[in-house]
Protein backbone atom coordinates (compact mmCIF):
# COMPACT_ATOMS: atom_id res chain seq x y z
CA UNK A 1 0.00 0.00 0.00
CA UNK A 2 2.77 2.38 1.01
CA UNK A 3 4.72 1.51 -2.13
CA UNK A 4 1.72 2.39 -4.31
CA UNK A 5 1.18 5.68 -2.47
CA UNK A 6 4.86 6.58 -2.72
CA UNK A 7 4.94 5.75 -6.42
CA UNK A 8 1.90 7.92 -7.03
CA UNK A 9 3.48 10.77 -5.08
CA UNK A 10 6.76 10.39 -6.96
CA UNK A 11 4.92 10.38 -10.28
CA UNK A 12 3.13 13.57 -9.37
CA UNK A 13 6.45 15.15 -8.43
CA UNK A 14 7.99 14.02 -11.69
CA UNK A 15 5.02 15.35 -13.64
CA UNK A 16 5.38 18.64 -11.83
CA UNK A 17 8.97 18.83 -13.01
CA UNK A 18 8.07 18.39 -16.63
CA UNK A 19 9.43 21.17 -18.77
CA UNK A 20 7.00 24.03 -19.25
CA UNK A 21 8.00 26.82 -21.54
CA UNK A 22 7.10 30.35 -20.47
CA UNK A 23 4.75 29.01 -17.85
CA UNK A 24 1.98 31.38 -16.91
CA UNK A 25 2.19 31.88 -13.16
CA UNK A 26 -0.34 34.58 -12.43
CA UNK A 27 -2.80 36.96 -13.99
CA UNK A 28 -3.87 40.30 -12.54
CA UNK A 29 -6.32 42.74 -14.00
CA UNK A 30 -8.02 46.04 -13.62
CA UNK A 31 -10.65 47.76 -15.67
CA UNK A 32 -12.33 51.10 -15.72
CA UNK A 33 -13.55 53.90 -17.89
CA UNK A 34 -11.39 56.24 -19.94
CA UNK A 35 -12.70 59.64 -18.99
CA UNK A 36 -10.77 61.86 -21.38
CA UNK A 37 -7.58 62.12 -23.42
CA UNK A 38 -5.42 64.93 -24.72
CA UNK A 39 -7.28 64.55 -28.03
CA UNK A 40 -10.85 64.09 -26.80
CA UNK A 41 -12.18 65.84 -23.70
CA UNK A 42 -14.93 63.33 -22.91
CA UNK A 43 -14.50 59.72 -23.91
CA UNK A 44 -16.36 57.15 -21.80
CA UNK A 45 -14.89 53.91 -23.17
CA UNK A 46 -14.32 50.87 -20.98
CA UNK A 47 -10.72 49.62 -20.86
CA UNK A 48 -9.34 46.40 -19.44
CA UNK A 49 -5.69 45.94 -18.50
CA UNK A 50 -4.11 42.56 -17.89
CA UNK A 51 -0.78 41.69 -16.32
CA UNK A 52 0.52 38.20 -16.98
CA UNK A 53 3.38 36.87 -14.86
CA UNK A 54 5.41 34.46 -16.96
CA UNK A 55 8.24 32.25 -15.78
CA UNK A 56 11.31 32.78 -17.95
CA UNK A 57 14.07 30.44 -16.83
CA UNK A 58 14.79 31.24 -13.20
CA UNK A 59 13.11 34.62 -13.12
CA UNK A 60 9.72 36.00 -14.03
CA UNK A 61 8.64 38.50 -16.63
CA UNK A 62 5.59 40.70 -16.46
CA UNK A 63 3.61 41.19 -19.66
CA UNK A 64 1.18 44.09 -19.70
CA UNK A 65 -1.58 44.55 -22.22
CA UNK A 66 -4.80 46.36 -22.79
CA UNK A 67 -7.98 44.98 -24.28
CA UNK A 68 -11.15 46.53 -25.61
CA UNK A 69 -14.39 44.86 -24.64
CA UNK A 70 -14.72 42.91 -27.91
CA UNK A 71 -11.11 41.72 -27.52
CA UNK A 72 -11.86 40.61 -23.97
CA UNK A 73 -14.92 38.61 -25.01
CA UNK A 74 -12.90 37.03 -27.81
CA UNK A 75 -10.14 36.13 -25.31
CA UNK A 76 -12.70 34.56 -22.98
CA UNK A 77 -14.31 32.66 -25.86
CA UNK A 78 -10.98 31.29 -27.08
CA UNK A 79 -9.93 30.19 -23.60
CA UNK A 80 -13.24 28.35 -23.22
CA UNK A 81 -12.59 26.60 -26.52
CA UNK A 82 -9.08 25.67 -25.37
CA UNK A 83 -10.48 24.24 -22.16
CA UNK A 84 -13.05 22.22 -24.11
CA UNK A 85 -10.21 20.87 -26.24
CA UNK A 86 -8.22 19.94 -23.14
CA UNK A 87 -11.19 18.14 -21.68
CA UNK A 88 -11.23 15.77 -24.62
CA UNK A 89 -8.21 14.15 -23.02
CA UNK A 90 -9.66 13.55 -19.57
Amino acid at each position, binding site marked *: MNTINNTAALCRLALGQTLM*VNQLLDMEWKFGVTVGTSEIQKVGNIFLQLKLVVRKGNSTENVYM*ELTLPQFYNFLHEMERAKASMECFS
Partner: protein
Amino acid sequence: MTRRRLTSHVNMAAALSSEDFNNLQLLLKAPSKDAVRDVCVQSHKGPSRQLTENMASTLSIPATQAAQLVRSLHVLSHHVIFHNLSSPEQILAVFPESFHSSLKNLITKILLENSPTWRTEAVSDQVSLPQLKDLNWRVDLVTGSDSISRMSVPTCLVQLKMEDPCPSAGGESVSTVTVELSRESLDTILDGLGRIRDQLSVVAGK
Protein backbone atom coordinates in the same frame (compact mmCIF):
# COMPACT_ATOMS: atom_id res chain seq x y z
CA MET B 1 1.58 52.78 -38.69
CA THR B 2 4.29 55.35 -38.18
CA ARG B 3 2.39 58.59 -37.65
CA ARG B 4 4.02 60.81 -35.09
CA ARG B 5 1.47 62.85 -33.15
CA LEU B 6 3.82 64.79 -30.87
CA THR B 7 3.10 68.21 -32.36
CA SER B 8 -0.65 67.67 -32.25
CA HIS B 9 -0.56 67.52 -28.46
CA VAL B 10 1.36 70.80 -28.27
CA ASN B 11 -1.09 72.48 -30.61
CA MET B 12 -4.11 71.04 -28.86
CA ALA B 13 -3.46 73.22 -25.85
CA ALA B 14 -3.55 76.34 -28.00
CA ALA B 15 -6.90 78.02 -28.48
CA LEU B 16 -7.71 79.61 -31.82
CA SER B 17 -6.43 83.14 -32.19
CA SER B 18 -7.33 85.93 -34.59
CA GLU B 19 -4.06 85.16 -36.34
CA ASP B 20 -5.32 81.60 -36.93
CA PHE B 21 -8.48 82.91 -38.58
CA ASN B 22 -6.44 85.24 -40.76
CA ASN B 23 -4.39 82.23 -41.84
CA LEU B 24 -7.55 80.25 -42.57
CA GLN B 25 -8.73 82.94 -44.99
CA LEU B 26 -5.73 82.06 -47.17
CA LEU B 27 -7.95 79.17 -48.26
CA LEU B 28 -9.85 81.68 -50.39
CA LYS B 29 -6.96 81.29 -52.83
CA ALA B 30 -7.71 77.60 -53.31
CA PRO B 31 -8.63 76.62 -56.90
CA SER B 32 -11.59 74.46 -55.86
CA LYS B 33 -13.67 73.19 -52.95
CA ASP B 34 -11.98 69.81 -53.30
CA ALA B 35 -8.60 71.49 -52.86
CA VAL B 36 -9.86 73.06 -49.61
CA ARG B 37 -11.14 69.67 -48.48
CA ASP B 38 -7.83 68.01 -49.29
CA VAL B 39 -5.84 70.65 -47.43
CA CYS B 40 -8.06 70.36 -44.32
CA VAL B 41 -7.78 66.58 -44.20
CA GLN B 42 -4.01 66.56 -44.72
CA SER B 43 -3.45 69.25 -42.08
CA HIS B 44 -5.30 67.24 -39.45
CA LYS B 45 -2.56 64.62 -39.46
CA GLY B 46 0.13 67.14 -38.67
CA PRO B 47 2.69 69.37 -40.32
CA SER B 48 5.13 67.98 -42.84
CA ARG B 49 7.45 69.60 -45.32
CA GLN B 50 5.74 67.82 -48.22
CA LEU B 51 2.35 69.10 -47.13
CA THR B 52 3.63 72.66 -46.76
CA GLU B 53 5.23 72.55 -50.23
CA ASN B 54 2.11 71.12 -51.87
CA MET B 55 -0.08 73.68 -50.19
CA ALA B 56 2.22 76.55 -51.14
CA SER B 57 2.02 75.56 -54.79
CA THR B 58 -1.74 74.79 -54.77
CA LEU B 59 -2.59 78.14 -53.21
CA SER B 60 0.28 80.10 -54.80
CA ILE B 61 1.44 81.39 -51.43
CA PRO B 62 4.89 81.48 -49.81
CA ALA B 63 5.96 78.42 -47.83
CA THR B 64 5.94 80.34 -44.52
CA GLN B 65 2.27 81.26 -45.00
CA ALA B 66 1.47 77.68 -46.04
CA ALA B 67 3.09 76.37 -42.83
CA GLN B 68 1.05 78.82 -40.75
CA LEU B 69 -2.14 77.75 -42.53
CA VAL B 70 -1.40 74.07 -41.85
CA ARG B 71 -0.87 74.85 -38.18
CA SER B 72 -4.10 76.86 -37.91
CA LEU B 73 -6.15 74.18 -39.67
CA HIS B 74 -4.59 71.58 -37.39
CA VAL B 75 -5.52 73.56 -34.27
CA LEU B 76 -9.07 74.03 -35.58
CA SER B 77 -9.72 70.38 -36.46
CA HIS B 78 -8.27 69.15 -33.18
CA HIS B 79 -10.31 71.74 -31.27
CA VAL B 80 -13.47 70.37 -32.92
CA ILE B 81 -12.56 66.78 -31.97
CA PHE B 82 -11.47 67.64 -28.43
CA HIS B 83 -14.70 69.46 -27.60
CA ASN B 84 -16.80 67.07 -29.67
CA LEU B 85 -18.40 69.87 -31.68
CA SER B 86 -20.86 67.84 -33.67
CA SER B 87 -23.44 70.27 -35.03
CA PRO B 88 -23.03 73.00 -37.67
CA GLU B 89 -24.09 75.66 -35.15
CA GLN B 90 -21.40 74.62 -32.67
CA ILE B 91 -18.64 74.77 -35.27
CA LEU B 92 -19.88 78.01 -36.91
CA ALA B 93 -19.81 79.63 -33.47
CA VAL B 94 -16.04 79.12 -33.31
CA PHE B 95 -15.48 81.57 -36.17
CA PRO B 96 -15.47 85.35 -35.67
CA GLU B 97 -18.35 87.42 -37.15
CA SER B 98 -16.04 88.99 -39.72
CA PHE B 99 -14.94 85.67 -41.24
CA HIS B 100 -15.76 85.10 -44.90
CA SER B 101 -19.21 83.52 -44.82
CA SER B 102 -19.00 80.97 -47.66
CA LEU B 103 -15.56 79.80 -46.61
CA LYS B 104 -16.81 79.43 -43.04
CA ASN B 105 -19.68 77.24 -44.26
CA LEU B 106 -17.39 75.14 -46.44
CA ILE B 107 -14.83 74.56 -43.66
CA THR B 108 -17.66 73.69 -41.25
CA LYS B 109 -19.06 71.17 -43.72
CA ILE B 110 -15.63 69.57 -44.21
CA LEU B 111 -15.03 69.37 -40.46
CA LEU B 112 -18.44 67.77 -39.87
CA GLU B 113 -17.85 65.21 -42.64
CA ASN B 114 -14.51 64.10 -41.24
CA SER B 115 -15.13 64.35 -37.48
CA PRO B 116 -16.46 60.81 -36.99
CA THR B 117 -13.40 59.30 -38.68
CA TRP B 118 -11.01 61.60 -36.83
CA ARG B 119 -12.66 60.82 -33.51
CA THR B 120 -12.43 57.07 -34.10
CA GLU B 121 -8.76 57.46 -35.02
CA ALA B 122 -8.10 59.52 -31.87
CA VAL B 123 -9.69 56.81 -29.73
CA SER B 124 -7.68 54.03 -31.34
CA ASP B 125 -4.44 56.04 -31.23
CA GLN B 126 -4.77 57.12 -27.62
CA VAL B 127 -2.12 56.48 -25.01
CA SER B 128 -2.40 52.83 -24.13
CA LEU B 129 -0.56 49.77 -22.98
CA PRO B 130 0.20 47.40 -25.86
CA GLN B 131 -3.13 46.26 -27.24
CA LEU B 132 -4.01 42.62 -27.68
CA LYS B 133 -4.40 42.25 -31.41
CA ASP B 134 -4.46 38.52 -31.99
CA LEU B 135 -4.75 35.35 -29.96
CA ASN B 136 -3.92 31.82 -31.06
CA TRP B 137 -3.81 28.66 -29.00
CA ARG B 138 -2.85 25.04 -29.30
CA VAL B 139 -3.59 22.11 -27.01
CA ASP B 140 -0.96 19.41 -26.91
CA LEU B 141 -0.90 16.04 -25.21
CA VAL B 142 2.47 15.57 -23.55
CA THR B 143 3.30 11.90 -23.86
CA GLY B 144 6.79 11.82 -22.44
CA SER B 145 9.48 13.87 -20.78
CA ASP B 146 12.92 13.51 -19.28
CA SER B 147 11.33 12.84 -15.90
CA ILE B 148 8.60 10.39 -16.95
CA SER B 149 8.79 8.25 -20.08
CA ARG B 150 5.08 7.60 -20.41
CA MET B 151 2.55 10.25 -19.54
CA SER B 152 -0.58 11.72 -20.90
CA VAL B 153 -0.93 15.29 -19.79
CA PRO B 154 -2.70 17.97 -21.79
CA THR B 155 -1.09 21.37 -21.94
CA CYS B 156 -2.08 24.57 -23.70
CA LEU B 157 0.11 27.03 -25.58
CA VAL B 158 -1.33 30.49 -26.02
CA GLN B 159 0.25 33.02 -28.31
CA LEU B 160 -0.64 36.66 -27.74
CA LYS B 161 0.18 39.28 -30.34
CA MET B 162 0.30 42.79 -29.02
CA GLU B 163 0.62 46.08 -30.79
CA ASP B 164 1.80 49.26 -29.17
CA PRO B 165 -0.12 52.15 -30.75
CA CYS B 166 2.54 54.68 -29.72
CA PRO B 167 5.89 52.86 -29.71
CA SER B 168 8.87 54.76 -28.37
CA ALA B 169 11.40 55.91 -30.94
CA GLY B 170 13.29 52.92 -32.25
CA GLY B 171 10.93 50.53 -30.48
CA GLU B 172 9.00 47.74 -32.13
CA SER B 173 5.29 48.19 -32.33
CA VAL B 174 4.32 44.49 -32.55
CA SER B 175 5.40 41.97 -29.93
CA THR B 176 4.50 38.33 -29.44
CA VAL B 177 4.37 36.36 -26.21
CA THR B 178 3.76 32.63 -26.05
CA VAL B 179 2.81 31.16 -22.69
CA GLU B 180 2.18 27.62 -21.60
CA LEU B 181 -0.75 26.78 -19.38
CA SER B 182 -1.48 23.64 -17.45
CA ARG B 183 -5.10 22.60 -17.13
CA GLU B 184 -5.18 24.07 -13.63
CA SER B 185 -3.79 27.38 -14.86
CA LEU B 186 -6.33 27.49 -17.65
CA ASP B 187 -9.12 26.85 -15.15
CA THR B 188 -7.80 29.64 -12.96
CA ILE B 189 -7.60 31.99 -15.94
CA LEU B 190 -11.16 31.15 -16.91
CA ASP B 191 -12.27 31.73 -13.36
CA GLY B 192 -10.59 35.14 -13.44
CA LEU B 193 -12.03 36.02 -16.84
CA GLY B 194 -15.46 34.95 -15.63
CA ARG B 195 -15.18 37.30 -12.69
CA ILE B 196 -14.14 40.12 -15.02
CA ARG B 197 -17.17 39.37 -17.19
CA ASP B 198 -19.47 39.48 -14.16
CA GLN B 199 -17.95 42.75 -12.95
CA LEU B 200 -18.23 44.22 -16.43
CA SER B 201 -21.93 43.41 -16.64
CA VAL B 202 -22.46 45.20 -13.34
CA VAL B 203 -20.70 48.27 -14.74
CA ALA B 204 -22.50 48.06 -18.06
CA GLY B 205 -25.81 47.70 -16.31
CA LYS B 206 -25.35 50.99 -14.42
